[in-house]
Protein backbone atom coordinates (compact mmCIF):
# COMPACT_ATOMS: atom_id res chain seq x y z
CA UNK A 1 0.00 0.00 0.00
CA UNK A 2 1.11 3.51 -0.77
CA UNK A 3 1.11 5.35 2.54
CA UNK A 4 1.45 8.77 0.96
CA UNK A 5 -1.65 8.23 -1.14
CA UNK A 6 -3.58 6.89 1.83
CA UNK A 7 -2.58 9.93 3.86
CA UNK A 8 -3.75 12.25 1.10
CA UNK A 9 -7.11 10.50 0.89
CA UNK A 10 -7.37 10.62 4.67
CA UNK A 11 -6.62 14.36 4.76
CA UNK A 12 -9.14 15.10 2.00
CA UNK A 13 -11.68 13.07 3.97
CA UNK A 14 -10.95 15.06 7.11
CA UNK A 15 -11.45 18.27 5.16
CA UNK A 16 -14.84 17.17 3.87
CA UNK A 17 -15.68 15.75 7.27
CA UNK A 18 -15.03 19.07 8.98
CA UNK A 19 -17.75 20.66 6.83
CA UNK A 20 -20.11 17.81 7.76
CA UNK A 21 -19.22 18.41 11.39
CA UNK A 22 -20.01 22.13 11.22
CA UNK A 23 -23.35 21.53 9.54
CA UNK A 24 -23.98 18.72 11.99
CA UNK A 25 -23.38 21.14 14.85
CA UNK A 26 -25.97 23.49 13.35
CA UNK A 27 -28.38 20.56 13.22
CA UNK A 28 -27.61 19.55 16.80
CA UNK A 29 -28.10 23.13 18.08
CA UNK A 30 -31.63 23.18 16.71
CA UNK A 31 -32.40 19.68 17.91
CA UNK A 32 -31.02 20.31 21.40
CA UNK A 33 -33.06 23.42 21.99
CA UNK A 34 -36.29 22.76 20.14
CA UNK A 35 -36.41 18.98 19.50
CA UNK A 36 -36.96 19.69 15.81
CA UNK A 37 -35.27 17.43 13.29
CA UNK A 38 -34.48 20.01 10.66
CA UNK A 39 -34.22 18.34 7.28
CA UNK A 40 -34.01 21.73 5.59
CA UNK A 41 -30.47 22.27 6.92
CA UNK A 42 -29.03 21.25 3.54
CA UNK A 43 -31.17 23.84 1.78
CA UNK A 44 -30.24 26.57 4.27
CA UNK A 45 -26.62 25.70 3.60
CA UNK A 46 -27.32 26.00 -0.12
CA UNK A 47 -28.97 29.38 0.46
CA UNK A 48 -25.81 30.56 2.23
CA UNK A 49 -23.71 29.58 -0.78
CA UNK A 50 -26.09 31.40 -3.14
CA UNK A 51 -26.23 34.48 -0.92
CA UNK A 52 -22.45 34.64 -1.06
CA UNK A 53 -22.58 34.21 -4.83
CA UNK A 54 -25.18 36.95 -5.14
CA UNK A 55 -23.14 39.36 -3.04
CA UNK A 56 -19.73 38.56 -4.47
CA UNK A 57 -20.55 37.97 -8.14
CA UNK A 58 -23.84 39.84 -8.48
CA UNK A 59 -23.02 43.01 -6.54
CA UNK A 60 -19.23 42.72 -6.96
CA UNK A 61 -18.58 43.02 -3.24
CA UNK A 62 -15.23 41.84 -1.89
CA UNK A 63 -15.24 38.43 -0.23
CA UNK A 64 -14.79 39.80 3.30
CA UNK A 65 -18.09 41.67 2.97
CA UNK A 66 -19.86 38.93 1.03
CA UNK A 67 -19.14 36.35 3.73
CA UNK A 68 -20.94 38.28 6.50
CA UNK A 69 -23.76 38.96 4.05
CA UNK A 70 -24.18 35.21 3.52
CA UNK A 71 -24.03 34.47 7.25
CA UNK A 72 -26.50 37.26 8.08
CA UNK A 73 -28.93 36.13 5.41
CA UNK A 74 -28.76 32.66 6.95
CA UNK A 75 -29.52 34.16 10.35
CA UNK A 76 -32.42 36.12 8.91
CA UNK A 77 -33.89 33.00 7.30
CA UNK A 78 -33.49 31.19 10.59
CA UNK A 79 -35.34 33.91 12.49
CA UNK A 80 -38.19 34.10 9.98
CA UNK A 81 -38.57 30.33 9.74
CA UNK A 82 -38.59 29.85 13.50
CA UNK A 83 -41.13 32.60 14.06
CA UNK A 84 -43.34 31.86 11.06
CA UNK A 85 -43.25 28.09 10.61
CA UNK A 86 -41.87 26.37 13.69
CA UNK A 87 -43.47 28.41 16.48
CA UNK A 88 -47.05 27.67 15.32
CA UNK A 89 -46.17 23.96 15.28
CA UNK A 90 -45.10 23.85 18.94
CA UNK A 91 -46.70 20.91 20.66
CA UNK A 92 -47.59 19.14 17.41
CA UNK A 93 -46.21 15.67 16.80
CA UNK A 94 -42.51 15.59 15.88
CA UNK A 95 -43.43 14.01 12.56
CA UNK A 96 -45.50 17.04 11.54
CA UNK A 97 -42.69 19.43 12.39
CA UNK A 98 -40.29 17.20 10.48
CA UNK A 99 -42.55 17.37 7.44
CA UNK A 100 -42.73 21.17 7.77
CA UNK A 101 -38.96 21.32 7.45
CA UNK A 102 -39.11 19.05 4.38
CA UNK A 103 -41.64 21.44 2.86
CA UNK A 104 -39.41 24.37 3.77
CA UNK A 105 -36.49 22.69 2.01
CA UNK A 106 -38.58 22.31 -1.11
CA UNK A 107 -39.60 25.98 -0.98
CA UNK A 108 -36.00 27.14 -0.56
CA UNK A 109 -34.75 24.93 -3.41
CA UNK A 110 -37.45 26.30 -5.70
CA UNK A 111 -36.74 29.88 -4.62
CA UNK A 112 -33.04 29.54 -5.42
CA UNK A 113 -33.88 28.17 -8.86
CA UNK A 114 -36.24 31.05 -9.59
CA UNK A 115 -33.63 33.65 -8.66
CA UNK A 116 -30.38 32.11 -9.91
CA UNK A 117 -31.49 29.44 -12.39
CA UNK A 118 -31.03 25.69 -12.31
CA UNK A 119 -27.46 25.47 -13.61
CA UNK A 120 -24.53 24.77 -11.29
CA UNK A 121 -22.40 27.85 -10.60
CA UNK A 122 -18.89 28.45 -9.34
CA UNK A 123 -18.21 30.82 -6.47
CA UNK A 124 -15.60 33.53 -7.12
CA UNK A 125 -12.20 32.52 -5.75
CA UNK A 126 -11.48 34.06 -2.38
CA UNK A 127 -9.03 31.72 -0.71
CA UNK A 128 -5.26 31.66 -1.30
CA UNK A 129 -4.45 29.03 -3.91
CA UNK A 130 -0.83 28.18 -3.07
CA UNK A 131 -0.62 24.37 -2.70
CA UNK A 132 -0.16 23.06 0.80
CA UNK A 133 2.05 20.14 1.81
CA UNK A 134 1.87 18.38 5.15
CA UNK A 135 5.16 16.54 5.16
CA UNK A 136 4.98 15.12 1.65
CA UNK A 137 1.24 14.77 1.39
CA UNK A 138 -0.45 17.28 -0.90
CA UNK A 139 -3.62 18.93 0.33
CA UNK A 140 -5.90 21.07 -1.83
CA UNK A 141 -5.68 24.60 -0.36
CA UNK A 142 -9.45 25.12 -0.37
CA UNK A 143 -9.97 21.93 1.60
CA UNK A 144 -7.26 22.93 4.08
CA UNK A 145 -8.64 26.42 4.66
CA UNK A 146 -12.16 25.01 4.80
CA UNK A 147 -11.00 22.63 7.51
CA UNK A 148 -9.37 25.44 9.47
CA UNK A 149 -12.42 27.69 9.18
CA UNK A 150 -14.70 24.81 10.17
CA UNK A 151 -12.59 24.05 13.23
CA UNK A 152 -12.65 27.73 14.26
CA UNK A 153 -16.43 27.86 13.95
CA UNK A 154 -16.72 24.61 15.90
CA UNK A 155 -14.51 25.91 18.68
CA UNK A 156 -16.52 29.13 18.78
CA UNK A 157 -19.77 27.18 19.00
CA UNK A 158 -18.55 24.88 21.74
CA UNK A 159 -17.11 27.70 23.85
CA UNK A 160 -20.21 29.84 23.31
CA UNK A 161 -22.34 26.96 24.49
CA UNK A 162 -20.20 26.53 27.57
CA UNK A 163 -19.42 30.10 28.59
CA UNK A 164 -21.95 32.53 27.15
CA UNK A 165 -25.27 33.34 28.82
CA UNK A 166 -27.26 32.30 25.79
CA UNK A 167 -25.36 29.02 25.51
CA UNK A 168 -25.99 28.11 29.12
CA UNK A 169 -29.65 29.06 28.72
CA UNK A 170 -29.80 26.76 25.70
CA UNK A 171 -28.30 23.89 27.66
CA UNK A 172 -30.74 24.51 30.48
CA UNK A 173 -33.66 24.49 28.06
CA UNK A 174 -32.40 21.28 26.51
CA UNK A 175 -32.10 19.61 29.90
CA UNK A 176 -35.51 20.58 31.26
CA UNK A 177 -37.84 23.10 29.69
CA UNK A 178 -40.08 23.56 32.73
CA UNK A 179 -37.14 24.11 35.05
CA UNK A 180 -35.63 26.56 32.58
CA UNK A 181 -38.86 28.54 32.57
CA UNK A 182 -38.98 28.60 36.37
CA UNK A 183 -35.50 30.04 36.75
CA UNK A 184 -36.47 32.88 34.45
CA UNK A 185 -35.10 31.76 31.11
CA UNK A 186 -37.13 33.08 28.20
CA UNK A 187 -37.55 29.73 26.44
CA UNK A 188 -39.14 31.05 23.23
CA UNK A 189 -36.19 33.40 22.87
CA UNK A 190 -33.82 30.48 23.30
CA UNK A 191 -35.69 28.73 20.49
CA UNK A 192 -35.26 31.79 18.27
CA UNK A 193 -31.63 32.12 19.22
CA UNK A 194 -30.84 28.51 18.45
CA UNK A 195 -32.46 28.73 15.01
CA UNK A 196 -30.70 32.01 14.21
CA UNK A 197 -27.27 30.78 15.25
CA UNK A 198 -27.70 27.37 13.65
CA UNK A 199 -28.89 28.79 10.32
CA UNK A 200 -26.07 31.36 10.34
CA UNK A 201 -23.54 28.58 10.93
CA UNK A 202 -25.12 26.46 8.18
CA UNK A 203 -25.02 29.39 5.75
CA UNK A 204 -21.37 29.95 6.55
CA UNK A 205 -20.71 26.26 5.95
CA UNK A 206 -22.54 26.67 2.66
CA UNK A 207 -19.99 29.24 1.53
CA UNK A 208 -17.16 26.80 2.30
CA UNK A 209 -18.92 23.88 0.62
CA UNK A 210 -19.71 26.05 -2.39
CA UNK A 211 -16.12 27.26 -2.63
CA UNK A 212 -14.89 23.67 -2.83
CA UNK A 213 -17.56 21.98 -4.94
CA UNK A 214 -19.53 24.81 -6.57
CA UNK A 215 -23.17 25.60 -5.91
CA UNK A 216 -26.31 24.18 -7.50
CA UNK A 217 -29.99 23.88 -6.54
CA UNK A 218 -29.41 20.20 -5.75
CA UNK A 219 -26.84 21.03 -3.08
CA UNK A 220 -29.48 20.23 -0.47
CA UNK A 221 -28.48 16.55 -0.86
CA UNK A 222 -25.62 17.53 1.46
CA UNK A 223 -28.31 17.55 4.13
CA UNK A 224 -28.78 13.79 3.73
CA UNK A 225 -25.11 13.15 4.52
CA UNK A 226 -25.44 15.47 7.50
CA UNK A 227 -28.42 13.43 8.63
CA UNK A 228 -26.21 10.34 8.61
CA UNK A 229 -23.56 12.25 10.57
CA UNK A 230 -25.89 13.33 13.35
CA UNK A 231 -27.60 9.96 13.60
CA UNK A 232 -24.23 8.25 13.94
CA UNK A 233 -22.95 10.85 16.40
CA UNK A 234 -26.16 11.22 18.39
CA UNK A 235 -28.84 13.78 17.67
CA UNK A 236 -28.20 15.91 20.76
CA UNK A 237 -24.44 15.76 21.09
CA UNK A 238 -21.99 18.38 19.81
CA UNK A 239 -19.07 15.99 20.30
CA UNK A 240 -21.07 13.41 18.39
CA UNK A 241 -21.50 15.80 15.47
CA UNK A 242 -17.76 16.49 15.43
CA UNK A 243 -16.65 12.86 15.66
CA UNK A 244 -19.45 11.65 13.37
CA UNK A 245 -18.67 14.34 10.81
CA UNK A 246 -14.96 13.54 10.62
CA UNK A 247 -15.67 9.79 10.63
CA UNK A 248 -18.23 9.96 7.83
CA UNK A 249 -16.00 12.32 5.85
CA UNK A 250 -13.06 9.94 6.01
CA UNK A 251 -15.22 6.88 5.31
CA UNK A 252 -16.73 8.64 2.28
CA UNK A 253 -13.30 9.60 0.99
CA UNK A 254 -12.01 6.02 1.24
CA UNK A 255 -15.19 4.52 -0.19
CA UNK A 256 -15.09 7.01 -3.07
CA UNK A 257 -11.44 6.27 -3.80
CA UNK A 258 -11.38 2.51 -3.53
CA UNK A 259 -14.91 1.49 -4.47
CA UNK A 260 -16.10 4.33 -6.70
CA UNK A 261 -18.19 7.44 -6.18
CA UNK A 262 -21.54 5.69 -6.28
CA UNK A 263 -20.59 3.56 -3.26
CA UNK A 264 -20.30 6.61 -0.98
CA UNK A 265 -23.98 6.76 -0.09
CA UNK A 266 -24.26 2.98 0.19
CA UNK A 267 -21.42 2.77 2.70
CA UNK A 268 -22.47 5.73 4.84
CA UNK A 269 -26.11 4.72 4.92
CA UNK A 270 -25.16 1.14 5.79
CA UNK A 271 -23.18 2.51 8.72
CA UNK A 272 -26.25 4.49 9.70
CA UNK A 273 -28.52 1.43 9.58
CA UNK A 274 -26.00 -0.43 11.73
CA UNK A 275 -25.93 2.39 14.28
CA UNK A 276 -29.73 2.63 14.27
CA UNK A 277 -30.02 -1.07 15.00
CA UNK A 278 -27.33 -1.24 17.68
CA UNK A 279 -27.33 2.20 19.33
CA UNK A 280 -30.37 4.17 18.10
CA UNK A 281 -29.34 7.17 20.19
CA UNK A 282 -25.99 7.39 18.40
CA UNK A 283 -22.44 7.08 19.64
CA UNK A 284 -22.60 10.05 22.01
CA UNK A 285 -26.32 10.84 22.29
CA UNK A 286 -28.46 10.75 25.41
CA UNK A 287 -30.28 7.45 25.81
CA UNK A 288 -33.72 8.91 26.43
CA UNK A 289 -34.11 10.27 22.89
CA UNK A 290 -34.89 6.74 21.77
CA UNK A 291 -38.52 7.17 22.79
CA UNK A 292 -39.05 10.00 20.32
Amino acid sequence: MDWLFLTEVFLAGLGAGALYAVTGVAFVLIYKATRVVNLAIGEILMLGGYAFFGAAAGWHLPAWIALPVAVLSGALVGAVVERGLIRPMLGESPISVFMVTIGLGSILAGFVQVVWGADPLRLPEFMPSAPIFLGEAYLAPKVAYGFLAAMLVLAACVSALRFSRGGVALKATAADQGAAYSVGIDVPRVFSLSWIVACAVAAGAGVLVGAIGGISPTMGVFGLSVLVVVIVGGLDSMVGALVGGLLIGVVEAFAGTFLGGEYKFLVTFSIMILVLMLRPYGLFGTHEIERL
Partner: protein
Amino acid sequence: MRIGTLKTSYAADEALFDTRLQKLLLVLALVAAVLFPFVASPYWLFLACLCAINVASATGLNILTGYTGLVSLGQAAFMSVGAYAVAVLEIHVGTPFLINLLAGALVTALVGIGVGIPSLRVKGLYLAIATIAASVVLHFVFSHWSLTGGARGLSMPPATLFGVALDQPFQLYWPIMPVTVLMVLGAANLFRTRIGRAFIAIRDRDISAEVLGIPLLRYKLMSFAVSSFYAGLAGGLWAYFFRVVTPESFPLVNSIFYLAAIIVGGMGTVLGGILGAVFMTMVPEVLKFAAGMVTPFYPDALALLAPVRTIVFGALIVGFLIFEPHGLAEIWCRIRRFFHLWPFKT
Protein backbone atom coordinates in the same frame (compact mmCIF):
# COMPACT_ATOMS: atom_id res chain seq x y z
CA MET B 1 -73.97 12.80 14.27
CA ARG B 2 -76.92 12.73 12.02
CA ILE B 3 -80.60 12.59 12.95
CA GLY B 4 -82.81 9.71 11.85
CA THR B 5 -80.23 7.06 11.02
CA LEU B 6 -81.81 4.31 13.09
CA LYS B 7 -80.25 0.92 12.58
CA THR B 8 -82.60 -2.05 12.93
CA SER B 9 -80.25 -4.87 11.92
CA TYR B 10 -76.62 -5.76 12.37
CA ALA B 11 -76.16 -5.77 8.61
CA ALA B 12 -77.27 -2.14 8.44
CA ASP B 13 -75.00 -1.24 11.31
CA GLU B 14 -72.00 -2.85 9.68
CA ALA B 15 -72.58 -1.41 6.22
CA LEU B 16 -69.64 0.51 4.78
CA PHE B 17 -71.95 3.01 3.10
CA ASP B 18 -74.92 3.59 5.32
CA THR B 19 -77.13 6.21 3.73
CA ARG B 20 -79.16 6.08 0.56
CA LEU B 21 -77.50 9.27 -0.75
CA GLN B 22 -74.07 7.74 -0.28
CA LYS B 23 -75.06 4.64 -2.21
CA LEU B 24 -76.57 6.76 -4.95
CA LEU B 25 -73.43 8.84 -5.26
CA LEU B 26 -71.33 5.70 -5.29
CA VAL B 27 -73.31 4.21 -8.15
CA LEU B 28 -73.09 7.51 -10.03
CA ALA B 29 -69.32 7.60 -9.50
CA LEU B 30 -68.96 4.03 -10.77
CA VAL B 31 -71.05 4.79 -13.86
CA ALA B 32 -68.96 7.90 -14.46
CA ALA B 33 -65.77 5.87 -14.11
CA VAL B 34 -67.03 3.35 -16.67
CA LEU B 35 -68.21 5.99 -19.13
CA PHE B 36 -65.19 8.28 -18.66
CA PRO B 37 -62.83 6.56 -21.17
CA PHE B 38 -65.40 6.85 -23.93
CA VAL B 39 -65.73 10.61 -23.67
CA ALA B 40 -62.32 11.78 -22.41
CA SER B 41 -59.33 12.66 -24.54
CA PRO B 42 -56.11 10.59 -24.22
CA TYR B 43 -54.57 13.38 -22.13
CA TRP B 44 -57.34 13.16 -19.53
CA LEU B 45 -57.19 9.37 -19.57
CA PHE B 46 -53.44 9.57 -19.00
CA LEU B 47 -54.06 11.82 -16.00
CA ALA B 48 -56.79 9.53 -14.72
CA CYS B 49 -54.47 6.52 -14.84
CA LEU B 50 -51.69 8.46 -13.13
CA CYS B 51 -54.11 9.61 -10.43
CA ALA B 52 -55.33 6.04 -9.93
CA ILE B 53 -51.79 4.70 -9.53
CA ASN B 54 -50.95 7.44 -7.06
CA VAL B 55 -54.17 6.84 -5.16
CA ALA B 56 -53.26 3.17 -4.80
CA SER B 57 -49.79 3.96 -3.50
CA ALA B 58 -50.97 6.77 -1.21
CA THR B 59 -53.62 4.49 0.25
CA GLY B 60 -50.91 1.96 1.01
CA LEU B 61 -48.79 4.59 2.73
CA ASN B 62 -51.88 5.74 4.62
CA ILE B 63 -52.29 2.25 6.06
CA LEU B 64 -48.72 2.38 7.36
CA THR B 65 -48.40 6.03 8.36
CA GLY B 66 -51.93 7.26 8.86
CA TYR B 67 -53.35 4.21 10.59
CA THR B 68 -50.39 2.45 12.20
CA GLY B 69 -48.39 5.58 12.94
CA LEU B 70 -45.16 4.32 11.37
CA VAL B 71 -43.71 7.09 9.22
CA SER B 72 -42.10 5.81 6.07
CA LEU B 73 -40.07 7.71 3.51
CA GLY B 74 -39.62 4.58 1.44
CA GLN B 75 -42.88 4.32 -0.44
CA ALA B 76 -41.30 5.19 -3.79
CA ALA B 77 -38.56 2.63 -3.17
CA PHE B 78 -41.20 -0.03 -2.49
CA MET B 79 -42.92 0.98 -5.72
CA SER B 80 -39.63 0.50 -7.54
CA VAL B 81 -39.38 -3.03 -6.14
CA GLY B 82 -42.82 -3.82 -7.52
CA ALA B 83 -42.06 -2.18 -10.85
CA TYR B 84 -38.77 -4.05 -11.28
CA ALA B 85 -40.29 -7.36 -10.23
CA VAL B 86 -43.06 -6.95 -12.78
CA ALA B 87 -40.62 -5.86 -15.48
CA VAL B 88 -38.31 -8.82 -14.86
CA LEU B 89 -41.22 -11.27 -14.86
CA GLU B 90 -42.63 -9.78 -18.05
CA ILE B 91 -39.30 -9.80 -19.92
CA HIS B 92 -37.56 -12.93 -18.66
CA VAL B 93 -40.40 -15.23 -17.61
CA GLY B 94 -43.32 -14.06 -19.69
CA THR B 95 -46.07 -14.90 -17.22
CA PRO B 96 -49.46 -13.25 -17.76
CA PHE B 97 -50.19 -9.68 -16.79
CA LEU B 98 -52.32 -10.16 -13.68
CA ILE B 99 -50.06 -12.86 -12.24
CA ASN B 100 -47.07 -10.56 -12.72
CA LEU B 101 -48.84 -7.78 -10.84
CA LEU B 102 -49.70 -10.08 -7.96
CA ALA B 103 -46.22 -11.61 -7.82
CA GLY B 104 -44.61 -8.18 -7.91
CA ALA B 105 -46.79 -7.04 -5.04
CA LEU B 106 -45.96 -10.15 -3.01
CA VAL B 107 -42.23 -9.67 -3.57
CA THR B 108 -42.60 -6.06 -2.45
CA ALA B 109 -44.48 -7.16 0.64
CA LEU B 110 -41.55 -9.42 1.54
CA VAL B 111 -39.09 -6.55 1.04
CA GLY B 112 -41.38 -4.37 3.15
CA ILE B 113 -41.25 -6.89 5.99
CA GLY B 114 -37.46 -6.80 5.76
CA VAL B 115 -37.41 -3.01 5.92
CA GLY B 116 -39.91 -3.08 8.77
CA ILE B 117 -37.77 -5.22 11.05
CA PRO B 118 -36.05 -2.18 12.63
CA SER B 119 -39.50 -0.83 13.51
CA LEU B 120 -39.58 -2.60 16.87
CA ARG B 121 -36.25 -1.12 17.85
CA VAL B 122 -36.67 2.41 16.53
CA LYS B 123 -39.73 4.60 16.36
CA GLY B 124 -40.96 7.81 14.86
CA LEU B 125 -38.36 9.86 13.08
CA TYR B 126 -35.69 7.23 13.50
CA LEU B 127 -37.86 4.83 11.57
CA ALA B 128 -38.42 7.44 8.86
CA ILE B 129 -34.66 7.85 8.57
CA ALA B 130 -34.17 4.08 8.50
CA THR B 131 -36.58 3.88 5.56
CA ILE B 132 -34.56 6.59 3.78
CA ALA B 133 -31.51 4.39 4.28
CA ALA B 134 -33.41 1.39 2.92
CA SER B 135 -34.37 3.32 -0.19
CA VAL B 136 -30.75 4.36 -0.74
CA VAL B 137 -29.71 0.71 -0.51
CA LEU B 138 -32.51 -0.41 -2.87
CA HIS B 139 -31.57 2.32 -5.36
CA PHE B 140 -27.99 1.09 -5.29
CA VAL B 141 -29.03 -2.53 -5.82
CA PHE B 142 -31.23 -1.65 -8.79
CA SER B 143 -28.58 0.47 -10.48
CA HIS B 144 -25.87 -2.21 -10.12
CA TRP B 145 -27.65 -5.53 -10.58
CA SER B 146 -27.38 -6.99 -14.07
CA LEU B 147 -30.88 -8.50 -13.79
CA THR B 148 -32.39 -5.02 -13.44
CA GLY B 149 -30.42 -3.57 -16.33
CA GLY B 150 -28.15 -1.26 -14.33
CA ALA B 151 -28.47 2.47 -14.78
CA ARG B 152 -30.21 2.09 -18.15
CA GLY B 153 -33.08 0.21 -16.58
CA LEU B 154 -35.53 -2.07 -18.34
CA SER B 155 -37.90 -1.46 -21.24
CA MET B 156 -41.00 -3.60 -21.31
CA PRO B 157 -43.33 -4.85 -24.02
CA PRO B 158 -46.93 -3.75 -23.57
CA ALA B 159 -49.10 -5.88 -21.33
CA THR B 160 -51.65 -8.15 -22.95
CA LEU B 161 -54.98 -8.95 -21.38
CA PHE B 162 -57.43 -11.31 -23.14
CA GLY B 163 -55.30 -11.06 -26.27
CA VAL B 164 -55.45 -7.25 -26.44
CA ALA B 165 -52.20 -5.30 -26.25
CA LEU B 166 -52.53 -2.57 -23.65
CA ASP B 167 -50.39 0.23 -24.99
CA GLN B 168 -52.68 3.27 -24.96
CA PRO B 169 -54.10 5.09 -21.92
CA PHE B 170 -57.54 4.03 -23.17
CA GLN B 171 -56.72 0.33 -22.83
CA LEU B 172 -54.63 0.69 -19.69
CA TYR B 173 -57.47 2.49 -17.94
CA TRP B 174 -59.44 -0.76 -17.84
CA PRO B 175 -57.05 -2.72 -15.65
CA ILE B 176 -55.73 0.22 -13.63
CA MET B 177 -59.01 1.73 -12.50
CA PRO B 178 -60.70 -1.48 -11.23
CA VAL B 179 -57.53 -2.59 -9.43
CA THR B 180 -57.32 0.77 -7.68
CA VAL B 181 -61.00 0.70 -6.74
CA LEU B 182 -60.55 -2.80 -5.31
CA MET B 183 -57.49 -1.73 -3.36
CA VAL B 184 -59.24 1.30 -1.87
CA LEU B 185 -62.27 -0.80 -0.93
CA GLY B 186 -59.92 -3.34 0.61
CA ALA B 187 -58.30 -0.61 2.70
CA ALA B 188 -61.69 0.71 3.81
CA ASN B 189 -62.70 -2.77 4.92
CA LEU B 190 -59.38 -3.55 6.55
CA PHE B 191 -60.09 -1.08 9.35
CA ARG B 192 -63.30 -2.88 10.23
CA THR B 193 -61.40 -6.07 11.00
CA ARG B 194 -59.34 -7.21 13.96
CA ILE B 195 -56.09 -6.48 12.12
CA GLY B 196 -57.05 -2.94 11.18
CA ARG B 197 -58.25 -2.17 14.69
CA ALA B 198 -54.94 -3.46 16.01
CA PHE B 199 -53.12 -1.05 13.66
CA ILE B 200 -55.15 1.85 15.00
CA ALA B 201 -54.50 0.78 18.59
CA ILE B 202 -50.76 0.71 17.88
CA ARG B 203 -50.93 4.20 16.39
CA ASP B 204 -52.81 5.66 19.32
CA ARG B 205 -50.44 4.26 21.94
CA ASP B 206 -48.23 1.30 21.31
CA ILE B 207 -47.64 0.40 24.94
CA SER B 208 -51.34 0.15 25.77
CA ALA B 209 -51.82 -1.82 22.55
CA GLU B 210 -49.26 -4.32 23.77
CA VAL B 211 -50.94 -4.49 27.15
CA LEU B 212 -54.21 -5.24 25.38
CA GLY B 213 -52.57 -8.31 23.89
CA ILE B 214 -51.55 -7.08 20.46
CA PRO B 215 -48.14 -8.50 19.52
CA LEU B 216 -46.40 -5.30 18.40
CA LEU B 217 -43.74 -6.76 16.15
CA ARG B 218 -46.13 -9.01 14.28
CA TYR B 219 -48.68 -6.27 13.65
CA LYS B 220 -46.10 -3.65 12.75
CA LEU B 221 -44.55 -6.04 10.24
CA MET B 222 -48.03 -6.86 8.97
CA SER B 223 -48.67 -3.18 8.45
CA PHE B 224 -45.42 -2.86 6.55
CA ALA B 225 -46.34 -5.90 4.47
CA VAL B 226 -49.82 -4.59 3.58
CA SER B 227 -48.51 -1.14 2.84
CA SER B 228 -45.72 -2.37 0.61
CA PHE B 229 -48.11 -4.81 -1.05
CA TYR B 230 -50.09 -1.74 -2.10
CA ALA B 231 -46.92 0.05 -3.15
CA GLY B 232 -45.79 -2.98 -5.15
CA LEU B 233 -49.10 -3.25 -6.95
CA ALA B 234 -49.02 0.47 -7.70
CA GLY B 235 -45.42 0.12 -8.88
CA GLY B 236 -46.39 -2.78 -11.15
CA LEU B 237 -49.19 -0.74 -12.68
CA TRP B 238 -46.73 2.12 -13.04
CA ALA B 239 -44.30 -0.15 -14.89
CA TYR B 240 -46.98 -1.28 -17.33
CA PHE B 241 -48.14 2.29 -17.72
CA PHE B 242 -44.78 3.90 -18.58
CA ARG B 243 -43.12 0.69 -19.85
CA VAL B 244 -39.64 1.91 -18.82
CA VAL B 245 -38.26 1.29 -15.35
CA THR B 246 -34.98 2.94 -14.38
CA PRO B 247 -33.36 3.50 -10.98
CA GLU B 248 -34.18 7.20 -11.35
CA SER B 249 -37.89 6.56 -11.86
CA PHE B 250 -38.53 6.46 -8.13
CA PRO B 251 -36.40 9.11 -6.41
CA LEU B 252 -36.69 10.06 -2.74
CA VAL B 253 -38.78 13.05 -3.81
CA ASN B 254 -41.52 10.63 -4.81
CA SER B 255 -41.59 9.17 -1.32
CA ILE B 256 -41.98 12.69 0.00
CA PHE B 257 -44.70 13.20 -2.60
CA TYR B 258 -46.76 10.31 -1.22
CA LEU B 259 -46.24 11.45 2.35
CA ALA B 260 -47.28 14.93 1.28
CA ALA B 261 -50.32 13.48 -0.47
CA ILE B 262 -51.64 11.83 2.68
CA ILE B 263 -50.84 14.92 4.76
CA VAL B 264 -52.70 17.15 2.32
CA GLY B 265 -55.52 14.66 2.01
CA GLY B 266 -55.76 13.79 5.67
CA MET B 267 -53.89 11.07 7.53
CA GLY B 268 -55.83 8.15 8.86
CA THR B 269 -58.83 8.38 6.56
CA VAL B 270 -59.27 6.38 3.37
CA LEU B 271 -60.92 9.37 1.76
CA GLY B 272 -57.87 11.46 2.63
CA GLY B 273 -55.55 9.19 0.66
CA ILE B 274 -57.78 9.46 -2.40
CA LEU B 275 -58.32 13.21 -2.22
CA GLY B 276 -54.68 13.95 -1.43
CA ALA B 277 -53.24 11.80 -4.21
CA VAL B 278 -55.60 13.23 -6.82
CA PHE B 279 -55.00 16.77 -5.59
CA MET B 280 -51.22 16.46 -5.57
CA THR B 281 -51.22 14.84 -9.01
CA MET B 282 -53.39 17.57 -10.48
CA VAL B 283 -51.53 20.56 -8.99
CA PRO B 284 -48.57 20.35 -11.43
CA GLU B 285 -51.01 20.05 -14.34
CA VAL B 286 -52.93 23.11 -13.16
CA LEU B 287 -49.63 24.97 -12.85
CA LYS B 288 -48.66 23.89 -16.37
CA PHE B 289 -52.01 25.15 -17.61
CA ALA B 290 -51.54 28.45 -15.77
CA ALA B 291 -48.04 28.83 -17.23
CA GLY B 292 -49.53 28.31 -20.69
CA MET B 293 -52.09 31.02 -19.94
CA VAL B 294 -49.55 33.67 -18.93
CA THR B 295 -46.99 32.85 -21.65
CA PRO B 296 -48.39 35.47 -24.08
CA PHE B 297 -47.81 38.20 -21.48
CA TYR B 298 -44.68 36.78 -19.87
CA PRO B 299 -42.66 34.63 -22.29
CA ASP B 300 -40.40 33.07 -19.63
CA ALA B 301 -43.29 31.49 -17.76
CA LEU B 302 -42.53 27.96 -18.97
CA ALA B 303 -38.92 28.21 -17.79
CA LEU B 304 -40.17 29.11 -14.32
CA LEU B 305 -42.57 26.18 -14.25
CA ALA B 306 -40.23 23.63 -12.63
CA PRO B 307 -39.03 25.81 -9.73
CA VAL B 308 -42.51 27.22 -9.10
CA ARG B 309 -43.79 23.65 -8.95
CA THR B 310 -41.17 22.86 -6.30
CA ILE B 311 -42.16 25.94 -4.30
CA VAL B 312 -45.88 25.16 -4.51
CA PHE B 313 -45.20 21.57 -3.47
CA GLY B 314 -43.35 22.71 -0.36
CA ALA B 315 -45.85 25.46 0.40
CA LEU B 316 -48.74 22.98 0.22
CA ILE B 317 -47.06 20.68 2.76
CA VAL B 318 -46.25 23.54 5.12
CA GLY B 319 -49.58 25.30 4.65
CA PHE B 320 -51.69 22.22 5.26
CA LEU B 321 -49.68 21.19 8.32
CA ILE B 322 -50.04 24.63 9.89
CA PHE B 323 -53.54 25.63 8.89
CA GLU B 324 -55.42 22.39 8.17
CA PRO B 325 -53.59 19.49 9.86
CA HIS B 326 -56.42 17.07 9.15
CA GLY B 327 -56.30 17.80 5.47
CA LEU B 328 -58.81 17.85 2.67
CA ALA B 329 -60.84 15.05 4.25
CA GLU B 330 -61.61 17.36 7.17
CA ILE B 331 -62.72 20.11 4.80
CA TRP B 332 -64.97 17.61 3.09
CA CYS B 333 -66.42 16.51 6.44
CA ARG B 334 -67.07 20.13 7.36
CA ILE B 335 -68.99 20.67 4.13
CA ARG B 336 -71.00 17.51 4.76
CA ARG B 337 -71.76 18.53 8.31
CA PHE B 338 -73.00 21.89 7.09
CA PHE B 339 -75.53 20.26 4.82
CA HIS B 340 -76.56 17.66 7.42
CA LEU B 341 -77.41 20.33 9.93
CA TRP B 342 -78.76 22.86 7.50
CA PRO B 343 -81.05 24.77 8.02
CA PHE B 344 -81.07 24.19 11.80
CA LYS B 345 -77.54 25.40 12.29
CA THR B 346 -75.65 27.57 9.88
